[in-house]
């Protein structure tokens, strides 16, 4: 089995289930995440990985199962709850209000205010420039509505929002889906940097190649169930591909089956 680092898990999701109508979107899944670790969550579209992670992000509550943050059992029912536990999410859809500028989007729902209770635009712009500059030194037009920005800039805004508030746990749902090679490399660099700072990262993707090199462990889902979790250093890409497509653990996969994948 896999051997996670020897410290208390940052996140532990135990026996999580979620139904939509008659469909078991997530069925009795357990995953965990340690400080400074990147766990790749893999599976086809519809495997249940986004649903699982949305329950950690507070987008919807779990039907059953338990979530522990740093060993403590917590109830996460809203995005607000998740943020309170230091969980930040970069959604595949980015979740940006297109009509607002970058600072407004960065501070959405957590606007800085002056002592009179009014929006403190100067402070928000100042902080936005600092964090966006760190991610993307060429980012100048931060006061434009984000709908006028490039895909990479929009992604930067979504990422900046997640790291701005000292997240302990970062959820990245297909973070490089909209990016070119250069920007993808930038995201990879950022992930390594955040790892060093002790942040735990769930990296969700349907594309094995996106996450394999960045992840310390991979958890594979298929049809709402967890196929298994493995140390990335102890499996091959082909074996993980087998987990994704066949829904079988590496030791159950036959060489013939793996050969069929190609």
């Amino acid at each position: 089995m896999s051997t996670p680092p020897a410290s208390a898990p940052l996140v532990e999701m135990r026996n999580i289930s979620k139904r939509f109508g008659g469909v078991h979107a997530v069925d009795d899944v357990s995953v965990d995440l340690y400080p400074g670790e990147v766990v790749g969550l893999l599976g086809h579209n519809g495997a249940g990985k986004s649903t699982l992670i949305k329950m950690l992000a507070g987008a919807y509550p779990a039907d059953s199962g338990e979530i522990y943050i740093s060993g403590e059992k917590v109830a996460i029912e809203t995005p607000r709850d998740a943020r309170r536990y230091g969980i930040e999410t970069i959604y595949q859809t980015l979740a940006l209000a297109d009509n607002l500028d970058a600072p407004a989007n960065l501070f959405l729902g957590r606007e800085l205010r002056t002592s009179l209770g009014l929006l403190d635009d100067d402070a928000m712009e100042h902080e936005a420039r600092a964090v966006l500059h760190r991610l993307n030194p060429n980012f100048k037009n931060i006061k434009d509505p984000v709908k006028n920005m490039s895909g990479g800039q929009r992604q930067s805004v979504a990422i900046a929002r997640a790291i701005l508030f000292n997240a302990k746990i970062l959820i990245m749902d297909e973070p490089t889906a909209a990016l070119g090679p250069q920007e993808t490399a930038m995201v990879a660099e950022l992930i390594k940097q955040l790892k060093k700072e002790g942040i735990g990262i769930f990296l969700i993707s349907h594309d094995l190649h996106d996450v394999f090199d960045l992840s310390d462990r991979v958890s594979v889902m298929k049809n709402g169930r967890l196929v298994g979790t493995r140390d990335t250093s102890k499996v091959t890409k082909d074996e993980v591909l087998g987990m994704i497509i066949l829904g079988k653990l590496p030791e159950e996969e036959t060489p013939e089956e793996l050969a069929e994948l190609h």
Partner: protein
Amino acid sequence: MAREEVGMVTSLEDAISRQTHGHPLSWLTSRQTFWVFLAAVIACVTLSLVTDTFATERNLFNVTRNFAFVGIVALGMTAVIIIGGIDLSVGSVVVLSAMVTGMTMAAGYPIYLAVPLALAASLAVGLFNGVMVAFLKVPPFVVTLGVLSVARSLAMVLSDNKMVYQFGPDHQALLTLGGGSTLGIPHPVYFLVVLALGTGYFFRWTRWGRHIFAIGGNEQAATLTGIPVRSVKISVYMFASLMAGITGVLEVGWLGGVTTNLGQSMELSVIAAAVIGGANLAGGIGTAFGAVVGAALIEVIRNSLILLGISTFWQGTFVGSFIIIAVLFDRLRVSRAND
């Protein structure tokens, strides 16, 4: 020291972005509100030159007062449109509020009781609209269309469909409130100015304002970032009803009486005013100033039809066409964005 550095970078970037974004004039000319404002000014100047009746004190007094009513309601409508909703019930809330004011005062109660009661009735309608939209997910068009019928019907039940024109001991106070003037300017205009400034201030400088724009821009994003979307929506519908309620109170005072056809089909003028003023029916865009300017343009054009001897029956054509054209532009823009 680090902060200084960042400050320098900021000003440098500002300079660059100002360069790349060009002259303030190009910013101004890119605003719909600017063109509408210009159109209203040109219409006023032309009318002053072409007719001897437009620039008279009496006519200007009437124009400003009339547009104040549409303008106040359009402030609330703009907020609703910004969150991507619509409120068809405002005209009926105007008559309900007017009728509650009238009936309460006719029964001998003082104005300081009647007005809060009327505004409370208006807020209750807004609360209902908001709860239906935010919690029960009924499309705003359907909810407020139903309430359009219900609220007017309630006003009829309340008054037995009779005209109310005796307002008890505070009769004169009510007439002064809505029909009087100070320094030559009709009282409803003061209300419009104060409410427009207040609305603009709230839109720009409060979290509530930021949140309504976020909801209109991307409701899902607003939810995921922890904005209390449902309560904000309810507050917006209540705000729209409150504006209609205030207008109802003022209109009774101006007319000196209230009948149950007050505010009939006013929602159309109000939506047109908001849309002409730059509010986008797809949500996320709109200004308080735009609502006022839009209301002004509609009233100036209505007035010009009268003064130029053109049948006022054309007014409905103008208002209706403008709404359709505005929505058409939205559609075109959306379909182009999807290509």
